[in-house]
């Protein structure tokens, strides 16, 4: 096949007919407070990791909710699990537990054998 030097980029549209939103159900079952998130961004603003590296928990949470699971595993590795986000959350969302469970769902080897 002729190499034209470019390829068709994967679609970056959120397609709620096809995308996997069922994984998020596991999160809300295990961490019911996740449902209360109002996306205010207090968690990502107070984040200690984001001082050193681009990391945005609110965005990851929303992407997971919308079934956009690509590349999230690497993103989640940036979290240091310090729990500062839990202190500032106005809705009492257990952000750390959400990250833990996301890592398990995304088959992160480190967390596979840990029960949360």
């Amino acid at each position, binding site marked *: 096949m002729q190499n034209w030097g470019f390829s068709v980029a994967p679609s970056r549209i959120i397609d709620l007919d096809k995308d996997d939103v069922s994984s998020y159900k596991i999160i809300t079952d295990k961490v019911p407070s996740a449902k209360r998130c*109002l996306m205010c*961004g*207090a968690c*990502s*603003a*107070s*984040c200690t990791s984001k001082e050193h590296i681009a990391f*945005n928990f*609110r965005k990851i949470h929303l992407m997971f909710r919308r079934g956009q699971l690509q590349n999230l595993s690497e993103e989640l590795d940036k979290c240091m699990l310090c729990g500062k986000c839990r202190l500032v*959350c106005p809705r009492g969302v257990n952000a750390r537990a959400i990250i833990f469970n996301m890592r398990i769902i995304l088959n992160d080897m480190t967390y596979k054998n840990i029960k949360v």
Partner: protein
Amino acid sequence: MIIHFDVIIIGGGPAGIVAANNIARQGYKVLILEKELNIGSHIKNIKNLFPNFMKADNVLYELTKKTDHKNICLETEAFVEKTYKENNIWFVRTSEGKLYSSHALILATGFRIFDARYKEELGYGLYKGVINTVELEAMIMKKDIKTAQGKLPQKIAFVNCVGSRDEKVGNHYCSRVCCINAVKQSIEIKELIPDAEIYCFYMDIRMAGQFYEELYRKSQETYHVNYIRGRVSEAAETIDKRIQIKAEDTLSQLPLKMTVDLLVLMTGVEASDSTTKLSTQLKINGEYGFAKSTNLHLSDNQTIHKGLFLAGCCKRPLTLPETIADARAAALCVVDYLKNN
């Protein structure tokens, strides 16, 4: 000695005054008990009212005129200690030991402003550059907006939802008036300091009232107020006594930090101490320390006790027009009750 009236109203704010005036005009003797030296409650501390910038002084003047009726007796600096009912008569005892009785009692004990010191991360009470909305209003009244160092602030940030919609301080509800108040105050600042930069941090902007949305639009179009969707998570003082804040600009999905001269916390509405105390005493305490009516839709001024009525912000956060309308409704209920009993 017990002094008897037809109706006793606890609280000399807008709700209490309007209710008293409407009942007095029907020929009933009314007593207003106000704990402060002057009536008018929070209106005394406001310059202009949203959304039409009517002078609060004019409202206060009109309200004061309403108390000037032959059937209204006004007792200021009367702090109510206890209220109780015996043989269908209500008794009210003040802290000075005076005892009053009446056929009907209206609770119009109003609200208080959330104490922002509970939100330690925002630095209120720690840094002089962090003030609350009431303190800003006092500056606007004096037409003298200054930082603690006496300088003219060039960069001012508003933080919405301080003490409301916040599980950490136990207030799950929306205070309703802070969003529009922030818009109003930002316009007033821009008129006093035209070259000031104003940023307003919000979680949701709730402009649910007539002319609110128009004022919000005007603040963007005419006054160039910047609205940033994100909750300020922490504030710290810099070496030159300015305030550095951190938030996430959730729409651009990037962390944001900025240094401002003045940080204004839009503190929410809470039940006043008297509201909490008296509603607990009378066993009509609802959620968050507010008093509870029997039915939100159908009997919002009545309580589970016969002859006990509610008016104004002792039930929930209300705007001034809503408070006045509610007080009129309460007056009608009371007159109805007095006629049939």
